[in-house]
């Protein structure tokens, strides 16, 4: 997806000095829109964006009402277009459903930074930055595969607690997980979707544990709902398996560090992407490039890496862990 045509790509001043990026430039008004911060991860996204914007005296953040309602988000973006902000950073509730309005913004001369959930066409954004959902599944699958192989378990029962099933990100994670396990000749056993909430995590897991008297490993897509998943496991007095989390909350990392929990690892999906998105928006607004790269322009697509946090490397990741 490298054909984003930034209309000012020919501006010569972009080749600025390498440390010029941190120096104050022309004031950029950044519109920001994300789903409702009703969840640890989305909360961290909003928080990181606000915090990052505060760091720059030349950035004015216009954060609109976070909402889980697509039409409300569309309306919110329309307000931003009417306000003629310079750049819009948008984490859409649903990439496809917001593509039209993003295109409208681009057409109105507003650069759109697409955060995480991807739009349907590159015409709708200047730059995409986001996590690697498929890669997350792969990381989790690989960790579980390695562990079970090394223990010599054959025909393992591998459970999966997914997030909201109708989100493309959930589908990508599950696909990655399935593909990774397939490399070891394993397959996913009981798989249920929760709602990204503690309570649904507890509810689904409590029932799921009843369906299999023995489980070897479990991947839970999301550390927020993971609190509930862990509670259900404790309440069922089940210890025979290990579990891998997702997203990388501080709480999950503390559990991993303690070593006494069934939670042995988590695969990250860092909400710091919001901070980066604000930085990118500022650079694009000021028509600067990323100084560590040779390009004069910000790239059109940046995919974050999904790291596997285990007891061995948890200390390195703890500062980035978000509170759920």
């Amino acid at each position, binding site marked *: 997806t490298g054909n984003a045509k930034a209309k000012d790509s020919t501006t010569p001043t972009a080749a600025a000095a390498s440390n010029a990026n941190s120096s104050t430039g022309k004031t950029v008004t950044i519109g920001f829109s994300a789903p409702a911060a009703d969840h640890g991860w989305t909360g961290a996204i909003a928080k990181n964006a606000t915090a990052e914007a505060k760091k720059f005296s030349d950035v004015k953040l216009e954060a609109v009402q976070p909402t889980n309602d697509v039409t409300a988000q569309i*309306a919110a973006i329309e307000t931003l277009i009417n306000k003629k902000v310079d750049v819009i950073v948008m984490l859409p509730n*649903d990439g496809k459903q917001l593509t039209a309005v993003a295109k409208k913004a681009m057409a109105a001369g507003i650069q759109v930074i697409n955060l995480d959930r991807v739009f349907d066409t590159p015409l709708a954004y200047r730059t995409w930055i986001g996590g690697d959902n498929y890669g997350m599944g792969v990381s989790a699958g690989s960790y579980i595969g390695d562990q079970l192989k090394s223990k010599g378990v054959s025909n393992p029962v591998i459970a999966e607690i997914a997030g909201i*099933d109708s989100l493309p990100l959930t589908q990508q994670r599950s696909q990655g997980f399935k593909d990774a396990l397939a490399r070891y000749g394993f397959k996913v056993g009981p798989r249920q979707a929760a709602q990204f909430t503690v309570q649904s995590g507890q509810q689904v897991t409590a029932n799921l544990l009843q369906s299999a008297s023995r489980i070897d490993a479990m991947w839970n897509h999301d550390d927020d709902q993971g609190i509930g998943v862990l509670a259900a496991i404790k309440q069922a007095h089940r210890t025979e398996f290990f579990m891998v989390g997702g997203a990388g909350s501080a709480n999950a990392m503390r559990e991993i560090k303690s070593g006494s929990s069934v939670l042995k690892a988590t695969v990250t999906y860092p909400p710091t992407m919001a901070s980066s998105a604000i930085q990118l928006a500022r650079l694009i607004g000021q028509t600067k490039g990323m100084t560590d790269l040779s390009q004069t322009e910000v790239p059109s697509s940046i995919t974050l890496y999904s790291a596997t946090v285990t007891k061995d490397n948890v200390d390195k990741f703890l500062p980035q862990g978000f509170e759920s």
Partner: protein
Amino acid sequence: MSEPPPNAVSIEKPPNALATEKPPVAEQARVEAAAERASVHRRTGVLARISEFRNVGLLGVLVVLGIIGGITAGTFWTRSNILTILQQASVVGVLSVGMTFVIIGGGIDLSVGKAMALASVWCTTISTQSYGPVVMVLCALAVGMAVGLVNGVLIAYGRVVPFIATLAMLASAQGLAEWISNKQSQLVTQGAINDLATTEPLGIPLLVWMFAVVAVLGWILLNRTTFGRRTFAVGGNIEAARLAGINVRRHTALLYVLSGLCVGIAAIMITSLTTTGSSTHGDLYELDAIAAVIIGGTALTGGRGTVVGSVVGVVIFTTISNIFILNNLQTETQNIAKGVIIVIAVLLQRRGRESPV
């Protein structure tokens, strides 16, 4: 049924039989006294009607919101913001018109939000889209009405309580929508559909026009047709309606089909607004629609209500959200404020005439 009954003729002749038994003077006085009493009744009647027209109270609430919006947000009173509010109100608005009928008729329809999602998904499958925009529209309408028909038959003939029947439909419609769409948003490739949301005849978005047309037709149907009047009867006193010779079951079933028709229209609107068909559309729209209908003065117990009230109710809710967005309030503040505003609005409107529970 359209002509006056045959014995209407005999009605007009004066009551001779009695007149002879009473002294004419007394009869005269009696009639005059009665007429005087009647005029008192008529006078209080008009007064009562005005004060009972609780939409006045609702409009007052809207005015207060408008003032608050104007003070707190500079852009509130711009043409484009007002049109945004109306466009935002249009989808739930159309659903609430159908819901008004169902609730006045003594029922409830919890399935509207997810039935709308199902209709939007069904009309945006690749194969449906290949037949062009007209077929897509017909498909959405057909799916909506089919859902309504199933609801109606279950409730009217299967005697399942409306709450449960439509709740079951909510779950099934959602599942079906997920199954058809494979849980993915289906992009609309037919430009004509997407254009619905962007065309602005006479400077007003087409979706707002559609909302207005549905509301006006709904008003006419409710207030000016036998169907509408019978809806009040069925919801107000089902036994009386039955004894009056109304086919109560068929009527009840039709109410849900009507709501389904509104669902189909709303599905087209949301599809063009979001340029997709998706199983995630319409989450909790049923609650929004019911809340708007009830804040609009329709009684949840049936037999009473107005379309105008429901429409104003939807606009009130949308305006509240809009003011929040313009003022950039955070979720938690929004939620707290929303609750407080709703209560104040209702207290302002002061429906003292309602029973205390």
